[in-house]
């Protein structure tokens, strides 16, 4: 049987943590999905639509000598073959990335990673387009590649980005946060210092639906309709306008149902641009959908951080400081999708959940001959790497001090009265109450009993491990003054209309990839206005239909757009007061709100429901000056701070001493995402993230050979957990609302992906303690675990 424990909310959190907006209701999007009536990108068929396919480079680093497209063009079903030279003529061969770099749309000079886009065929059908790829003759002059990021800055390393004038090495950036001198002083005086290289290998979000686009350019009025698998339709439209020179009002970006995103669908990929060019060239709609190998080999990967971690503490176990030096492999182009001023994302939250005296990190980003990307896979802008590092280091410290890892964490948590808490790298944690979450997870796990069982098993030579991890995220970017993407402030809009009969439509700027926005955002409006969720439509994913905003990633939908929706509903509620007052011939200040209606103070029988007020707004009652005749409103929400969800995770593993195979036996996850909306959806988000964690900890890696061949270009090589590799998740929660968010919500989309890998690896290392293992890098495959047991642990890269 599935066992899921839902525990009573944390009583210390004040309000008992009631979920808002009718709580656990079924999702509004499900009826179409279970009938097979979703509308995903590849389901779109336009009249006269053509199909595009991309020819990709077979090698990682090579001069492009020549491309002969004659035979491909002669194919009876081929309408166009586009090369880099053609794009140069349109000034589209290179496109700006989201990180102040440029990326080749098609190769003009040099191939920089295996799988890079070389040519684009447009044909009558998808089979013909693929056939024609084989008719293109390309000559390459192969160059030595840079594959190991550790060698990228060697004096003799080939310069990958010789397209950038004056470039003589492969350095992208050096970035630091925290006070180096202060941290050094704390380290120098500390009783105990431990250090460890911790590698977070390159992984891939690999959503079930790959990326694709359907471009439909109308040459008569110059209007582009672009259907895309994008998590950020508005940001894409603005960027297309900036880059392609098509006026923004002539571009409509539609993001249909998305088959999973996880950060893979934030950036603008060459394939999207090529579909647009194909449509302009042929005058017909062009569909491009990548295959799985293209998705794994060329679209945004995640992580690839080599971290030198250090932690300083007193001998009694008071953690004093953390410090790290990171080598970040960004691939061939710096195309990370993150706030522009944060080249390492929010990695500086690597101070974790602990009250420290000092912290310092420096990150160096380098180019290698690998696919670009780096910020994806539910990472909350590198919080994933940060949490993994600090939670591994705390565990290594616990081993050194011979302390229980849960006790060490409890001893060092930021205390509830310290919030809002300014950490040593510039973040102000909004709220937190860590100990109850940790204690709840230990209680659910039966922690002491597990430790006893572990001792007994060790006596019998059986390897059982218990891993603890506690994380604090920083999500919901963000205040516009601090966070932007290529100059676009990270705010989000919402428009709400209450129709004359009291039904409503709310239009939002974020885009669901499965998170259930059509349900959750209706529930927020329902909470604020008392209109039932089934009477509220949520419109998203179409730039012609929705207000501007930056989209869904970094767990920002509920923290930012959710705030916008709550505030727009309150604006409507306030407007409704004036209309109700006019209808009741009362003074607005004499009215009082209860869910769904305004009534006269002291005379509850006299009032008007939202539906009555909506009809009144559109009716014949004389409205006060300044109140126009509708019950509509719009807002753009600029959050005053980020939100800081947290959680306590405990993992129990059994390791087969003969084979090194790891079985995740139990996983206990206690999450605090502030105010809860739909507990069913929250639980689903957590479960999905925990599964990501099992994937990364045990099996997922995008690996390369020394020539730069991607060894993980299909689901036969890039392993993802199935139902057989994951346990029945055990979830619990506490509720510590965000003090600044309109409804106190903090976001939950990435918590489990962030928090689970360290819990699992900590459990594995704990299991291997009898072998003297203090650290091993992911993925903990049987072979790698076995090597660690033999005293030969290997970094994955």
């Amino acid at each position, binding site marked *: 049987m599935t066992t899921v424990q839902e525990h009573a909310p944390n009583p210390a959190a004040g309000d008992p943590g009631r979920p808002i907006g009718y709580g656990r209701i079924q999702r509004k999007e499900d009826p179409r*999905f*279970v009938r097979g009536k979703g509308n995903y990108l590849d389901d779109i068929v336009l009249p006269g639509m053509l199909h595009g396919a991309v020819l990709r480079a077979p090698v990682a680093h090579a001069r492009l000598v020549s491309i002969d497209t004659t035979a491909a063009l002669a194919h009876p079903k081929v309408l166009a073959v586009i090369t880099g030279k053609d794009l140069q003529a349109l000034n589209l061969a290179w496109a700006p990335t989201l990180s102040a770099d440029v990326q080749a749309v098609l190769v003009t000079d040099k191939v920089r990673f295996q799988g890079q886009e070389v040519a684009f065929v447009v044909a009558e059908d998808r089979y013909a387009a693929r056939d024609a790829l084989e008719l293109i003759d390309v000559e390459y002059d192969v160059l030595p590649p840079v594959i190991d990021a550790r060698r990228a800055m060697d004096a003799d390393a080939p310069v990958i980005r010789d397209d950038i004038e004056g470039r003589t090495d492969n350095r992208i950036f050096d970035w630091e946060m925290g006070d180096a001198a202060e941290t050094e002083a704390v380290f120098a005086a500390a009783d105990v210092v431990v250090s460890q290289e911790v590698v977070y290998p390159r992984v891939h979000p690999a959503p*079930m*639906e*790959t990326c694709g686009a359907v471009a439909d350019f109308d040459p008569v009025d110059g209007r582009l309709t672009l259907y895309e698998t994008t998590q950020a339709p508005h940001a894409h439209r603005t960027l297309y306008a900036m880059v392609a020179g098509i006026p923004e009002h002539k571009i409509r970006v539609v993001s249909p149902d998305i088959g999973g995103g996880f950060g893979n669908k934030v950036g603008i990929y060459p394939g999207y641009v090529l579909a647009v060019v194909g449509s302009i060239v042929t005058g017909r709609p062009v569909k491009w959908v990548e295959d799985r190998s293209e998705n794994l080999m060329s679209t945004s990967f995640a992580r690839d951080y080599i971290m030198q971690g250090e932690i300083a503490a007193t001998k009694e176990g008071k953690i004093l400081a953390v410090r790290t030096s990171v080598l970040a492999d960004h691939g061939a182009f710096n195309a990370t999708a993150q706030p522009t001023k944060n080249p390492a994302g929010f990695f500086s939250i690597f101070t974790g959940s602990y009250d420290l005296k000092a912290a310092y990190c420096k990150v160096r980003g380098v180019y290698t001959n690998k696919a670009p990307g780096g910020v994806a896979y539910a990472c909350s802008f590198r919080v994933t790497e940060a949490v993994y590092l600090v939670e591994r280091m705390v565990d290594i410290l616990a081993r050194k001090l011979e302390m229980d890892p849960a006790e060490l964490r409890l001893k060092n948590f930021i205390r509830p009265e310290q919030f809002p808490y300014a950490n040593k790298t510039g973040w102000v944690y909004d709220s937190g109450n860590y100990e109850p979450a940790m204690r709840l997870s230990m209680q659910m796990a039966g922690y002491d009993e597990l430790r006893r069982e572990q001792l007994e098993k060790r006596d019998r030579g059986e390897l059982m491990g218990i891993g603890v991890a506690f994380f604090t995220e920083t999500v919901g970017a963000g205040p516009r003054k601090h966070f932007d993407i290529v100059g676009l402030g990270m705010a989000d809009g919402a428009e709400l209309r209450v129709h004359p009969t009291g039904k409503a439509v709310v239009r939002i700027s974020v885009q669901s990839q499965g998170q259930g926005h059509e349900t959750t955002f209706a529930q927020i409006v329902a909470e604020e206005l008392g209109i039932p969720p089934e009477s509220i439509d949520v419109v998203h994913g179409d730039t012609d239909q929705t207000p501007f905003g930056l989209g869904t990633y970094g767990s920002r939908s509920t923290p930012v757009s959710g705030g916008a929706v709550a505030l727009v509903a309150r604006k409507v509620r306030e407007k409704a007061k004036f209309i109700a007052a006019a209808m009741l011939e009362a003074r607005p200040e004499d009215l009082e709100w209860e869910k769904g209606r305004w009534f006269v103070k002291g005379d509850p029988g006299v009032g008007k429901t939202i539906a009555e007020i909506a009809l009144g707004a559109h009716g014949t009652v004389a409205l006060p000056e300044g109140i126009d005749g509708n019950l509509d409103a719009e807002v753009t929400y600029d959050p005053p701070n980020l939100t800081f969800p947290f959680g306590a995770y405990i993992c129990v593993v059994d390791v087969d001493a003969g084979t090194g195979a790891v079985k995740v036996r139990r996983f206990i996850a206690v999450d605090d995402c502030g105010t809860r909306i739909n507990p069913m959806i929250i639980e689903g988000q957590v479960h999905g993230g925990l*599964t990501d964690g099992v994937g990364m900890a045990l099996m997922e890696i995008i690996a390369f050979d020394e020539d730069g061949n991607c060894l993980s270009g*299909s689901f036969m090589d890039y392993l993802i957990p199935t139902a*057989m590799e994951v346990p029945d998740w055990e979830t619990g929660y506490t509720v510590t609302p965000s003090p600044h968010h309109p409804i106190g919500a903090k976001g939950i989309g990435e918590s489990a992906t962030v928090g689970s890998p360290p819990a699992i690896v900590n459990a594995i290392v704990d299991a291997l303690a009898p072998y003297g293992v203090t650290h091993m890098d992911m993925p903990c495959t049987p072979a790698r675990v076995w090597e660690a047991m033999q005293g030969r642990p290997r970094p994955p890269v």
Partner: protein
Amino acid sequence: MQISMKVNGNDVTRDIEPRVLLVHFIREELGLTGTHWGCDTTNCGTCVVLMDGQPVKSCTVLAVMADGHEIRTVEGLAADGTLDPVQQGFMEEHGLQCGFCTPGMMLTARALLDRNPHPDAAEIREAISGQICRCTGYATIVRSVQWAAAHPLAKDPAADDGAAGASTAEEVTA
């Protein structure tokens, strides 16, 4: 070459290239886009349909191999406007998020319940172990199938010999 098969109870006949994959035939020839495609290597199971009641991955079945067989897709799960218990179960127990793997998962679940009306959790996990879901973490899928097992329809739509209400794409009716 010409092939004929029964799809969701409707006879279809088409002239196709021998190399056309069944998933493309279903999606593009018949317009039944509820069947998805995810990997090309028989790993992800997003494309699962039932062939003569057995789950098959339609990305690695040629359409010509389905000649003379019966195919059932997600559009054929509901009967006469009544959802299959599996469909209801997925909604009740949050067995789906993005919905992309869902049709394949539901068809495998239907085939499982047809041969084993009361599977335990381990049997459900094994049945769906050839399919990948990136969103749910599987536990809610297991619960969804358990919900369906606990709420069987009085009349089993699978035994209905294809009176399924899937003929929305009019092309399907040959």
